[in-house]
């Protein structure tokens, strides 16, 4: 979907992106992870030409992005940012309809699309469509921001620390939301963050950036279980890397089917991290496992957690 080949970018002679090559496959949820100053936002903004790269090539759907008008390419990519940047003088409805109206969709299609997106982002369409941004909570504003970014049916959704300014509870809800949307729509998403847990829980592919270079890229599991060097190990946290690994896998991967155990059962979709907490809180070494319909599936033993398969 997006291909970067030997891209360089410098601000006032200081290199920010240094000979970077990257391929973002269609349908992937790519998280660009890095500390501040690593060049992650710059990298994202070069993809929709908010910033122009100095050298190298950036391809979008197989074509050099400079062959498009910047506006044309941006209308094919959704864009959501941390401070949301909703137009304060436009209603929620008009904000969401920004790109469809730029694309000159007929009015009834725009109206239907707004309703569809508000429903997708769990905003009561009838209640909120005529409201103005300042009448919404921070979480609702960000929902509108994401809906607006998705409105023109973009091929790629670019998100620059979209949940950075939200409180932990709202942030967690919206993370779940965006993961659900990714699964449901299959949109290619590129998200920039410095939040390691956010990256691990959302990404199908993580790109770890430092000083404008890719240190390592891969699935969350690969990053944790096969760190390329000490920087990666340190970045993800040397001490709790085991806990994070447990967080990536579900109880279903360690299921002992056919066995039985007493006590309150746990869901097969529960993460191993939460299962471990369960073992410790209940002071047991065996838990009964059920599926979504509460049918008994088997058990999981405490010792199964030690089997840290990548």
């Amino acid at each position, binding site marked *: 979907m997006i291909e970067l080949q030997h891209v360089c970018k410098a601000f006032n002679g200081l290199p920010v992106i240094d000979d970077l090559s990257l391929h973002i496959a269609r349908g992937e949820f790519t998280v660009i992870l890095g500390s501040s100053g690593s060049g992650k936002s710059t990298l994202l903004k070069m993809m*929709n030409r*908010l910033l122009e790269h100095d050298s190298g090539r950036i391809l979008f759907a197989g074509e050099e992005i400079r062959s498009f008008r*910047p*506006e*044309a*390419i*941006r*209308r094919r990519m959704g*864009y959501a*940012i941390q*401070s*949301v*940047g*909703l*137009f*304060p*003088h436009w*209603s929620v409805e008009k904000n969401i309809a*920004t*790109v469809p109206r*730029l694309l000159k969709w007929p009015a009834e299609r725009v109206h239907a699309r707004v309703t569809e997106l508000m429903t997708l982002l769990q905003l009561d369409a009838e209640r909120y469509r*005529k*409201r*103005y941004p*300042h*009448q919404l909570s921070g979480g609702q504003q960000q929902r509108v*921001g994401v809906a*607006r*970014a998705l409105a023109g049916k973009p091929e790629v959704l*670019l998100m620059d620390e979209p949940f950075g300014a939200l409180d932990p509870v709202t942030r967690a809800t919206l993370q779940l939301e965006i993961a659900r949307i990714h699964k449901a729509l299959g949109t290619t998403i590129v998200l920039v963050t410095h939040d390691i847990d956010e990256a691990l829980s959302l990404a199908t592919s993580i790109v770890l950036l430092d000083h404008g270079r890719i240190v390592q890229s891969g699935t969350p599991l690969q990053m944790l279980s096969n760190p390329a060097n000490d920087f990666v190990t340190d970045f993800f946290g040397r001490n709790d890397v085991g806990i994070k690994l447990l967080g990536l896998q579900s109880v279903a991967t360690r299921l002992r089917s056919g066995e039985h155990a007493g006590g309150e059962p746990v869901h097969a979709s529960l993460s191993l991290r939460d299962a471990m907490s369960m073992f410790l809180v209940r002071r047991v070494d065996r838990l009964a496992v059920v599926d979504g319909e509460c049918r008994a599936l088997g058990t999981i033993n405490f010792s199964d957690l030690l089997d840290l398969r990548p």
Partner: protein
Amino acid sequence: MHWVKNRVLAVLVLSGLVAALGLPFLTHAPNRLVAGIGIALVQLGKDTAAHPMEIWLTLLPAVLLVAAIFLRPTRAIQIIVYLAATFFLTGLAALAAHHATQLADQSGAIARTSLGAAFWLLAAFSWLAATDAMQRLAVRLLWRLLGAGFVIVPLGLMLATGAFNDLSLLKEYANRQDVFSAALGQHLQIVLASLLPALLIGVPLALASNRSLSLRTPLFAVLNVIQTVPSIALFALLMAPLALLAASVPVLAQLGIKGIGLAPAVIALTLYALLPVVRSTAAGLSQVPQPVIEAAQGMGLTARQIFWRVELPLALPVFLAGLRVATVQTIGMAVVAALIGAGGFGAIVFQGLLGGALDLVLLGVLPVVAMALAVDALLKTLSLALEPNVND
């Protein structure tokens, strides 16, 4: 003093009482040139039999206003205070007009009855009381405008039906009707001729300064210096070069440009209006949040679309506030332009000042004040109407 519930009103009523007792409500003179004799408000009842309606129209609201000092200021009380204050104001005017007519009947055509200090102070105090009540009610602008109608409509009706015709102010108007109409035209002409170029020059300058910082600093430095030059000095400074210009380029002289008159006045007022116009435009544009512009770019709006759909509407309220300042300032300063022969209401004011005719001065000043207030209210309404309605 715990039984005083509305201190603002208490102060206003007390001051009004002092003014009513100590200062003349009307002054009466046998002719226009001699100093008049003051007539106090209490004297009015004794000297002439007042029309009962006018008495009630002032007495009843006055009693209500006094009572309201000691009542807890609820919304209902505030509405009563507002109505009482406006009716009191109308009543005062009716009372003054009525007595002026009676005095005119007694002492002939050349006698003059002017509004005295007590009238003006009482009018000002009741207007303040009304404004204070309106402010406490915190109602929408539409209601405020309707409320203002309570004063404007009856006074306007009285003016139109000739009720005030025996007041000296209106006699001065009757004598100078042509001069007054001409002054109104000239005044409007000066104001428009100054504001239009100020907008045509100022807005592009502000747009340019918003894009380049190297322009902004010197631009504002120059405009600030212009603003500090006193207007009379600026008129004087412009006279010599313009006279020279007209002498050397006859075409310009034929167009009416010379050292005195409209040309230097309009140039000076344009220069003065530039600062508020440029500053408000630049401030309006720079207060558009950066993330909003970034989001607009990121979604594929072109630079032109961002300007028309995002920057302009978001900058408009600040710009209109600046335009209000510029307009009100120009209306006021145009009075001084009469000194260099530009005409307008200033000419009437200065004629009155030189002749010692206070009513003539008022005849020049009151329309200027009215014009400024009207423009102020108009632009305020416009800027409020443009803001998104948050009450839905």
